[in-house]
């Protein structure tokens, strides 16, 4: 078996090495950037391909986040930067017509453990314990009523509108 393989070969798990924007970007800017089939990857080193894909995904997400922050800073200060980054990434995915494996790998991984990320801020609850204790019942009641009403209004309206649309057709 040859030591050099084409990195474009699909590895188990369905990850392609060369699907990233950055890759295309570099190849466009730098004629010397190796074509995918020129790159040296050891056949045994699927782990390497995997981590490279991970880093590509992370860098792309950071780029969209940074773009979002820039737009937020200079054009739309009332919308948080990450939300603009989300919209930009969404537009990019729609243009691409698919989710690149690298972005899917990293973004999916982060979203799977989304909860972990708001622990540091939530621990700040220690600073609010006295005022929360004093208002515990009222706050709980407001939260329960509000969530019940939100589910009811959203689902109810959805049901009515969907029925209407069906009758229309």
């Amino acid at each position, binding site marked *: 078996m040859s030591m050099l393989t084409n990195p474009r070969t699909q590895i188990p798990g369905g990850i392609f090495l060369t699907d990233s924007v950055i890759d295309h970007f570099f190849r466009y800017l730098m004629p010397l950037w190796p074509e995918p089939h020129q790159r040296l990857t050891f056949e045994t080193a699927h782990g390497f391909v995997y981590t490279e894909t991970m880093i590509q995904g992370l860098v792309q997400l950071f780029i969209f986040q940074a773009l979002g922050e820039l737009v937020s800073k200079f054009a739309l200060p009332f919308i948080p930067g990450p939300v603009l980054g989300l919209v930009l990434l969404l537009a990019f995915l729609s243009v691409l017509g698919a989710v690149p494996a690298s972005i899917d790998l990293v973004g999916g991984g982060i979203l799977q453990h989304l909860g972990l990320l708001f622990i540091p801020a939530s621990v700040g609850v220690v*600073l609010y314990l006295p005022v929360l204790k004093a208002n515990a019942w009222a706050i709980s009641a407001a939260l329960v009523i509000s969530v019940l009403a939100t589910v009811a209004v959203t689902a109810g309206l959805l049901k009515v509108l969907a029925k209407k649309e069906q009758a229309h057709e």
Partner: protein
Amino acid sequence: MSNEFQNYLPPISEIWVYLSGSPLLALVLTLSAYLLGLTLYERSQRNPLANPVLIAVVVVTLSISVLDMPYAKYFEGAQFVHFLLGTATVSLAIPIYKGFASLKGRMGVLLLSLVAGGITSVFTAVGMARWLGVDESLVRGLVAKSVTAPIAMGIAERVQASPTLTAIFAVSTGILGAVLGRYVLDALRVTAWWQRGFALGVAAHGIGTSRAFSVHPEAGAYASLGMGLHGIVGAVVIPYAVAWWF
């Protein structure tokens, strides 16, 4: 020889000072508390009441008060986890994009219900809280509570609400929605999976979405769509609504 070695070894108290001075302690604390939460969540067959975030927050809160560590000091270390919230928000584009694929021309209907649900969420929460005489410093934290936590905290900063309170209320809302949502849906006789899922995603964001996924994949896909769209719409509209209303 052993004497020489001992000279190099700092006393244990100094090691402790070094550890608590570096971000490591806060990071290890946060991550292991979350792992513990996840384990308990899996053990309870993914019962939404055993929410891993809730468990982790309780564990970390207790630990830092036992260690006598001020919150500011803890956050100094844990901010590296906190930083990824922005990246996670950007990643939300993935489930939204995948959700679009299964839409089948329902966009208009979904958006209308989403806006109605979002308005209901803010008005009922703030209205009830004021009516019950909740402290005004807490009321602002309720404004973004039905939006997914990473975006809700971004909104909170813009409307001069506390990101902490917003996160706490968002997590509580998510748990309540995941637990109670099905009773409301059954009472209203909403049977289509996509409708049930979308409503859960709008009202109870991430926690409702994982609940929806555990019930039915179609419900889950629509729930992530509902959560993501609510995040975008909320980030644009809520700051205006607050400026106008407060």
